């Protein structure tokens, strides 16, 4: 295998590039260490911990979707099973006083994920594309429903709980306070991210890309696409299991919601919104979606609607996700033509914002009249107070929508033109990506 790939592998990196490469990881590690010093409240630490878990989970999902081209609607199965087994293991360890410290426990979750991915993966990876998506959905429904029937293991809908502090201690850490859990999760996140990055650099990682792009060619060069897909599936299951294990340790409880469609949908959302074409895409998506889902429900009661619309907008207008949008600007930045874009951006921003504000205003007013009919019409959404029944609100909303969409069309057309100019200028100077 190494002979085949060495020909196409990039040249051996120079020392400065190597330094930069390791420097990035080192800086990331330092930032992770310092974060709790800046934001120390319990809620902030919980949020950071959840982001860490979500990063591992989304990256594991991207092994399937981004790298191998497998769209799964049931990735939470491996996450959930990892979580469940870890809760059982913590209980067994503390009951028998085994000398296993908590920081080693997530590996058990990973192995559980790997085991079940290996078990269920062979059948489901026989096919790719839509068939694979449907199969993953069916298997996920099967496992999630079975979890409610097999009460002894899954604990019914109440789930099972454990106490993470009753384990064998090293360095006198009992992992009670959230800060210790934060450091545990941060360390595992860093490890898992490095491991998954390394995976993309291996021959297997390259073969996954080949299977995604052209399975027939892969067959011609002597590989079985099914086996490649299967291996990718197993790795994805392994890392999903680690994420599930960390979630179980964080919450000290595992229940059937871990396995459910909502969890699978969330990881799909965050991975795709972040951008499946880049390694850091899912990381960006995980941070973005976690923060959004934790804070948006405080701002408006119909946050799911905005979330869904945002997702549709990303699918339609920015298939590369947030990272894709940023990466588009790389040639411009390198060639120095980005500055030319800024005025067009600023001009386009105003009517677009007006349109969005108008839509939100109208939505919130309508929601108030259909959902909370008869309540006080002075409502608050996104921290702004307004009267949902007043005609002024309606006129403003209508004006913003009509004028905003009209002006937005014009400015976006202008923006597209400016973009084309800037890009061709960049190309002329020899910057393509």
């Amino acid at each position, binding site marked *: 295998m190494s002979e085949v790939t060495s020909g196409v592998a990039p040249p051996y990196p120079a020392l400065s590039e190597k330094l930069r490469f390791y420097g990035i990881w080192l800086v990331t590690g330092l930032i992770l260490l310092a974060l709790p010093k800046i934001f120390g409240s319990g809620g902030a630490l919980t949020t950071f911990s959840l982001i860490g878990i979500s990063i591992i989970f989304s990256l594991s999902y991207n092994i399937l*979707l981004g790298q191998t*081209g497998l*769209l799964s609607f049931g990735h939470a199965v491996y996450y959930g099973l990892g979580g469940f087994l870890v809760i059982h293991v913590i209980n067994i360890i503390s009951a028998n006083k085994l000398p296993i410290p908590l920081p080693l426990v997530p590996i058990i979750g990973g192995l559980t994920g790997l085991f079940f991915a290996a078990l269920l993966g062979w*059948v*489901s990876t*026989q*096919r*790719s*594309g*839509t*068939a694979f*998506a*449907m*199969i993953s*959905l*069916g*298997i996920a*429904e*099967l496992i999630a*429903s*079975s979890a409610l*029937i*097999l*009460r*002894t*293991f899954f604990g019914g809908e109440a789930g099972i709980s454990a106490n993470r502090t009753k384990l064998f201690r090293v360095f006198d850490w009992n992992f009670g306070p959230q800060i210790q859990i934060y450091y545990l999760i941060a360390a595992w996140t860093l490890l898992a991210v490095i491991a998954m990055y390394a995976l993309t650099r291996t021959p297997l990682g390259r073969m996954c890309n080949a299977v995604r792009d052209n399975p027939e060619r892969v067959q011609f060069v002597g590989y079985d696409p099914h086996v490649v897909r299967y291996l990718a599936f197993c790795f994805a299951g392994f890392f999903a299991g680690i994420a599930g294990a960390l979630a179980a340790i964080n919450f000290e409880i595992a229940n059937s919601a871990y396995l459910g*469609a909502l969890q699978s*949908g969330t990881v*799909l959302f965050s991975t*795709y919104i972040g951008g499946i074409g880049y390694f850091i895409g899912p990381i960006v998506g995980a941070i973005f979606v976690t923060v959004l889902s934790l804070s948006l429900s405080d701002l408006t009661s*119909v946050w*799911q*609607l905005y*979330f*869904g*619309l945002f*997702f*549709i907008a990303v*699918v*339609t207008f920015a*298939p590369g996700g947030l990272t894709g949008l940023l990466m588009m600007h790389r040639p411009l930045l390198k060639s120095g033509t980005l500055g030319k874009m800024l005025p067009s951006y600023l001009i386009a921003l105003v009517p677009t914002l007006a349109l969005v504000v108008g839509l939100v205003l109208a939505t919130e007013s*309508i*929601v108030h009249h*259909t*959902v909370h009919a008869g309540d006080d019409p002075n409502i608050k959404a996104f921290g702004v107070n307004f009267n949902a029944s007043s005609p002024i609100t309606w006129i403003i909303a209508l004006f913003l929508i009509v004028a905003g969409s009209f002006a937005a069309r014009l400015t976006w057309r202008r923006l597209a033109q400016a973009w084309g100019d800037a890009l061709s200028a960049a190309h002329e100077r020899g910057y393509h990506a």
Partner: protein
Amino acid sequence: MLELIVISTLNGVLFGMLLFLMASGLTVIFSMLGVLNFAHASFYMLGAFFGFQLSRWFGFWPALLVAPLLAGGLGAAVERFGLRQVHKNGHVAELLFTFGLAFVIEELVQIIWGKSPVDFRIPSVLDFPAFTIFSTNYPAYKMFMLLVSIAIFVGLLLVLKKSRVGLIVQAALTHPHMVGHLGHNVGRIFMLVFGVGTALAAVAGVIAGPALVTQSNMAALLGPILFVVVVVGGLGSLPGAFIGSLLIGLVQTFAVSMNGSLEGAFGPLSPTYAQSWLADIWSVTIAQIAPIMPYMLLVLILIFRPMGLLGTRET
């Protein structure tokens, strides 16, 4: 016992026919556009809610006609202004677009009609027991549902076999690219097929709404089963979708009426295992696992016949 069998068969066939109304549209759309419409069950839900609202204003019969047209029009618009834009980004993006659409439609329905079930009544003309078997009434409305589904099934068959559009659709089932090369206006056919497919789902919604429940979670409840139907029947096969629908309708209904469990068949579990997870499997009845039967069927089919029952195409 005989009573249970007769009632269960009737209920099973009825549920199967409802599934087929949706699965047929889904299958044709999938064959032609190559995209599995995740939001298909959402159009079923829209049909039910449109039907509810229109029957409040104009009565049930106009609603039965207008609601599917509205939903179908909406479906066609989704194809024209949504899916077609996304098409250039590939099938995964299209599938995700419909996934997001299903999410948004559910939210919108919740905002407009609330989260609790709405009071969608059976029309009073049909609100009487059609016949009584062994002292159990069988409602006339359910017979009506059965008749409507069969009528549409026959109509669909005729259109597909006899009309020119039907021939093109049939050709597209097996050779989608060839149809395009032959110079048919593929874009318009796509839009038409999408509209008709979603309208069929909406018909199912209007007639099922009063009999079952009209609530904002009805799409999420039915959606996954619908995908099981098309995968079990064979992706892209219309007869397969028919057999799959009936099979799953009957399996689910009959499973509910059975009380058997391993405990009943082989006696209680030996006390050494009574506390282990084996006890759960041992004591669970067939009726309890009825809702997961379709998924078990799916896994079995995938192991023994990955193409589906009547499927021919890989993807």
